[in-house]
């Protein structure tokens, strides 16, 4: 792992932690936007540019704007303190979860290894070999997204549509006015 990668991960964790401890919701949202940008760069570093692009557009862009609109419509707790008070039961649950998850760490294949089941799987090599020939596009991610797993993508489109319908139902409207 390079220094750059390490600094990046440290930045992501720091901004993630900041969203949790900042008492001011606006501060928390800004920290979250920074976190999203950081994680988008992590995706790019991990050779997932499509995911990086989406994360940047969605996490740092759309989600942040929606959060800001929401607090513009609602309230920010007044800032008598900078940091949240520590909630011990919640911390206990979080630590327990991390501890349980950490027990699986040794069993996970090393990141970046060429011999992991994901990298060597029949499915992965099939996609890489046949995407251009069967789906006619150079970007295998797009080929898998729209062709091989097109049904998932239909579901994804329906989820987006559902969010729209959902907001209409929640606001009891017929149109986005």
């Amino acid at each position, binding site marked *: 792992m390079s220094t750059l990668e390490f600094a990046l991960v440290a930045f992501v964790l720091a901004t993630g932690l900041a969203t949790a401890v900042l008492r001011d919701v606006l501060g928390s949202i800004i920290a979250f936007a920074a976190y999203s940008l950081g994680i988008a760069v992590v995706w790019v570093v991990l050779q997932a540019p499509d995911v990086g692009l989406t994360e940047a557009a969605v996490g740092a862009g759309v989600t942040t704007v929606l959060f800001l609109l*929401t607090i513009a419509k609602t309230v920010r707790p007044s800032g008598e303190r900078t940091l949240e008070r520590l909630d011990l039961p919640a911390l206990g649950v979080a630590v327990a979860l991390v501890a349980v998850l950490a027990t699986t760490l040794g069993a996970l294949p090393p990141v970046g290894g060429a011999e992991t089941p994901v990298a060597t799987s029949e499915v992965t090599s099939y996609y890489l070999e046949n995407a251009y020939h069967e789906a006619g596009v150079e970007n295998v991610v797009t080929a898998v997204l729209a062709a091989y797993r097109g049904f998932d993508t239909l579901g994804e489109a329906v989820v987006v549509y559902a*969010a729209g319908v959902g907001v209409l139902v929640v606001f009891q409207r017929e149109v986005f006015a």
Partner: protein
Amino acid sequence: MIDAFAPRYLYLVTFLLLGIGTYMMIGNRNLVKKVIGMNLFQTGIFLFFIAAAYVEGASPAVLTREAPHVSPLPHVLILTAIVVGVSLTAVALGLIVRIYADYGTLDADVLWEVRHDD
């Protein structure tokens, strides 16, 4: 110990993000921050998948780039999951705006009180 840990540290980051997200959803009283926590929780899982797809020295799964390529499948899954995440966030924020219009507060503890008075 370190030898076993170093190549897997990204998974540990995943777990820590899940921990932070969990903490925020339980510990933070402000509803907006709970939703931010939900987003952190989800991105933690995204990292799990993207890290699993990564191969040292490989290029993105675009055929114009030279082989070897990283596995495209986890990327596709996470693209879908990101979309799901933003949709959930949008609906959650819609609900929050409505809750605020009705109760004038976003404090989860106060809202539970209000609810029990109904």
